[in-house]
């Protein structure tokens, strides 16, 4: 599956647009990690517990978007965007979306 942020696939032409595909997730770390992250926030530097939380959420939301595109029989997803918002303290919501297409 080709996943691109561009509106088309360079060197290939789009034969059919299958529609919007999206994948979202809300993930959290456990309380122990939140405590550790809170302490790291006091001293500065990277809070790797939350870096990991965001990375987990990003990968899962992209995978869900790709899975939806596969069920539609898509060859590629173009115009991919990722958005995030805070739904709860210490949790990360990611939404990945794009347009599923078939290539000629």
């Amino acid at each position, binding site marked *: 599956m080709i996943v691109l942020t561009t509106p088309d696939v360079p060197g290939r032409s789009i034969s059919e647009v299958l529609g919007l595909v999206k994948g979202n997730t809300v993930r959290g770390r456990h309380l122990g990690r939140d405590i550790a992250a809170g302490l790291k926030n006091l001293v500065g530097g990277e809070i790797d517990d939350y*870096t990991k939380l965001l990375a987990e959420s990003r990968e899962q939301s992209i995978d869900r978007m790709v899975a939806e595109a596969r069920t539609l029989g898509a060859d590629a997803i173009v115009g991919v965007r990722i958005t995030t918002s805070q739904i709860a303290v210490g949790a990360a919501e990611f939404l990945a979306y794009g347009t599923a297409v078939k290539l000629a």
Partner: protein
Amino acid sequence: MNQDPMPTPAELRAMAYADGELSDEETREFEREMIDDPQLAREVAQLKRLEVLSRQVAGPEPMDTEWKRLAEDPWQRAGHGLAWTALSIGVAGLAIAFVVAIAMVDTSPLVKALLLLVVGGFGLLLVLTIRGRLRTLPYDPYTKVQR
């Protein structure tokens, strides 16, 4: 020479499912099998985990090696162990003290019973949530993603 054994047909099918290469009908049949066979679902999660990790192509950063060294330092490990043990004992003790305080508070038995039900219900929900997380953890392929 490669000593890895050749994957079995069942393993190849699980790989094809994880990679989204099965037909719609084969996918539905495989998903039905996963419902009946937790081990199969666990194998798919493991394959998925490898696939997710293979995307993490960036190498370690200099800070990573120092974090790793620090995590292996005996004083650091002992300090963490001591801190978490103290914290756990303190929280458990406070929870017990809270229940005892409710039982001893000067109010009607009905209010006491209701307060204990609230605390007990919350505690039970917490235990069930932890149980659910521990049960589903082997099927979560994203836990090894670092950044």
